[in-house]
């Protein structure tokens, strides 16, 4: 690796550290003056050894799948309370299935519970890993829910 490359990476990493610091302060909604943390090595995109291309959660086949499709049917038919109950049951069996949480967000949205819809989307996103499709769907629903809230 040439020296120019090293320098280039170092500069970018430095900028990144500042960005990360700024974000972390903002994340708690407070801007407290505090001493800068001691310097740490910049992060580098190194794939984790043995890890597959960051596995998005793949739903288990089995009971939860049929409960889930029941829930989707209930949602489509406008039976929101029923959909909620069925989704909760599905989520007990597969608690980390991002699709289920996203569908729950949709149910909450239909029930005009926009705050909750956003939160369930955030939960779904937290389980989405690098599943860009699921992230996109959640972002879209969050935007819509926000829109409804401000109306």
């Amino acid at each position, binding site marked *: 690796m040439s020296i120019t490359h090293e320098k280039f990476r170092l500069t970018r990493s430095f900028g990144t550290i500042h*960005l990360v610091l700024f974000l972390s302060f903002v994340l708690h909604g407070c801007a407290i003056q505090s001493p800068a943390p001691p310097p740490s090595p*910049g992060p580098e995109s190194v794939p984790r050894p043995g890890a597959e291309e960051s596995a998005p959660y793949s739903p288990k086949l*089995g009971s939860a799948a049929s409960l889930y499709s029941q829930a989707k049917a209930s949602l489509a038919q406008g039976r929101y309370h029923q959909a909620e109950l069925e989704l909760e049951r599905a989520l*007990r069996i597969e608690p980390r299935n991002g699709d289920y949480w996203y569908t729950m967000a949709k149910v909450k949205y239909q029930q005009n519970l926009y705050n909750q819809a956003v939160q369930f989307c955030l939960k779904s996103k*937290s389980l989405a890993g690098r599943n860009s499709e699921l992230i996109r769907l959640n972002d879209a629903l969050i935007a819509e829910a926000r829109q409804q809230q401000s109306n």
Partner: protein
Amino acid sequence: MKKTTIAISVIGGFLCITLLFAFFTVRQVMQLNSEIGQLFDGKRWSLPAVLYARPLELYPGLEMTGEMFEQELQLAGYRRDVSVQDEGGYSRSGSTFELVTRAFVYPSGLEKSVAITVVIINDRVAQLTETGSDSPVPFARLDPARIGSFHPLVHEDRIVLQPQEIPILLREALIAVEDKGFFSHHGISIVGIARAFLANLAAGKTVQGGSTLTQQLVKNLFLNRERTLSRKLQEAVMAVLLDFNYSKEEILTAYINEVYLGQDGARAIHGFGLASQFHFRRNLQDLSVSQVATLVGMVKGPTYFDPLRQPDNALARREIVLRIMQSENIIDEQIAVAANREPLTDVIPQKNGFNRFPAFLELVRRQLQAEYREEDLKSNGLKIMTTLDPQVQWQVERQLSSSINEIEDRSGSKNIEGAVVVTGRENGEVQAIAGGRNALQPGFNRALDASRHIGSLVKPAVYLAALAKGYTLASPLMDTEINIDIDGERWRPQNYDKINHGRIGLYTALARSYNLATVRLGLEIGLPEVINTLTMLGYPKTIKPYPSLLLGAISMSPLDVTQFYQTIASGGFYLPLRSIRAVMNSDDSLLTRYGLEVEQHFSPELMFLLTHGLQRVMEEGTGSRYTPTASRSYAGKTGTSDNLRDSWFAGFSGDRLAVVWLGRDDNKPTNLTGASGALIVWGKMMQGLSSEPLEQTEPAGIGWSRIDTRTLQRTHPLNPDSTLLPFISVNDNDPDQQQPASDSGIEDIKNMTRSFLDTLNRLIK
């Protein structure tokens, strides 16, 4: 009515009135009248709330042993039948179970009864089919086990029957055997007394009782059983008054629901509804003729005629009852003959779930009391669907008890007590609670009420605060001596091993729970920041900004600890812990539902880092004494308080969070650290529960770097003293990746904080 009958009735009436005024003044009679009225009405309308465990959901692939399945069936009151036809029956042949579930009304509606066949292979449900047709069933929900009731008296329990639920056969048999003249007398039966008197005189001893059902009911309604003459007279008068004030139907129904019919340990069995469940594991309506006869026979002496303990007496008594039933034309000869041939009983009365889980019930009671009045809980017949998972609860109780015994033997410490709370990792449902090492002993519920220093359990909050401020897992910390002046006094914290470790990485300080590094870090971040983090994690009370907070000099109950570790386990989402799923009315309509709710308090990236740190605790830190079967299957934190008074462990697997506390009630030192005490219990429990290994979904904003363990700088893969650590990163090269910040992102955070503070206000109220 014949003339003679009328005459007897009238004479009887006169005699009763005479009796009234012979022994009591008018005022006394009025008093007795009001007393019996109160007792009667109180009992009649008393429909205590019934609590249910979570229903067992069966599906192919579910992990469960055959033994566990059978235990669940028994807890739910299923009886082992030879051929399974009726609801509530099951049969087992090796790994194959056949059963017929009972219909049950859930908040979602009626779940019909189904006949299913379950095959369990290698501790998993391998096959789930419809019995007979063999068509696969994707899932089946068993009706939930009844685990208790909020009866006014702790050791009493009832299944209260409405008049229309009482089989006619039972009514007729009862009257024929115990009180033939029930419908014609006025509460007491002069004829009955006279007959009994003569019979006893002839036999030279007491062979007959002259009391009516009404008198027996009065006797049952009194809480203390005196048998003095004055009491007997009082009861006689009250019987007359009862008969005067209430209809025969009401009295008979009350009797059927009140009569004492057996004992189950400390629990008294009152009423035919409960007796039918207890002795025969069937609903009253499903009893056979011979079984009804057995129960009716027990009225005279539940212990003496107990079918399990005194089968000969019970059999003889049943024969007498059947004979009376036949002579009164309640049943014909054919039926009587067949009934006599039936075996006495085909089940063993099981120690079912009644108040079997007092610590959990206490939590439910408290969570309900916030919204319901005591009277509602005791009299409106509410159905309470709880989150209790019997399999988890049994495992918890077993491991806590046996582990404490082992620990006491090994370490020589005595009088060690414990508490455990287990919840679902992603939904905050409380699956099990142990309030002490002896689960069945009601009393001080340590899980809810012990207030103990949490020691190092607080550290994740400190490290989370640091990570949020921009520290990384590789940030160098100084684990060196520190002296602090607090209000004029010197505080000199020390490491557990009394060694200063110098310059170390943040991940090491967390894994090995170094005190000095933690205190330095916490003071650098600032106590307000740490307190804020702890509050955002879900600890609801005020926290005083003392430096000793950084080493856990703050008292919490195991339940409090579980609440704030729940936010960590769920990946940064605050979930209020719930022990109740729903409350329904006695008519099965839904009253309140406590549904799933989440609120994001920390970003997934931050929580990923913290959780990674807590996985290292298990791998190479203070939690490594418990050998994981696969690397990083669990994440957790040990906690030891000052002078080894409290031994804690809080940790989670893929699907569960569990907090264990060990200590002495008198607060004396236990000689146990978190690792040598609580962790042992925790580890055994998690293994016994065959928990899912912890899998972290890596958020898009995470990147990994190889770090030299000595210099804490980035290094190359061939360096033997190196380790891979995650960092929060933004990769500019990949346009598809989520940018962690944008304007709307900041708004998100402000809104989150606002809504969180709202929630906090509501919680504090």
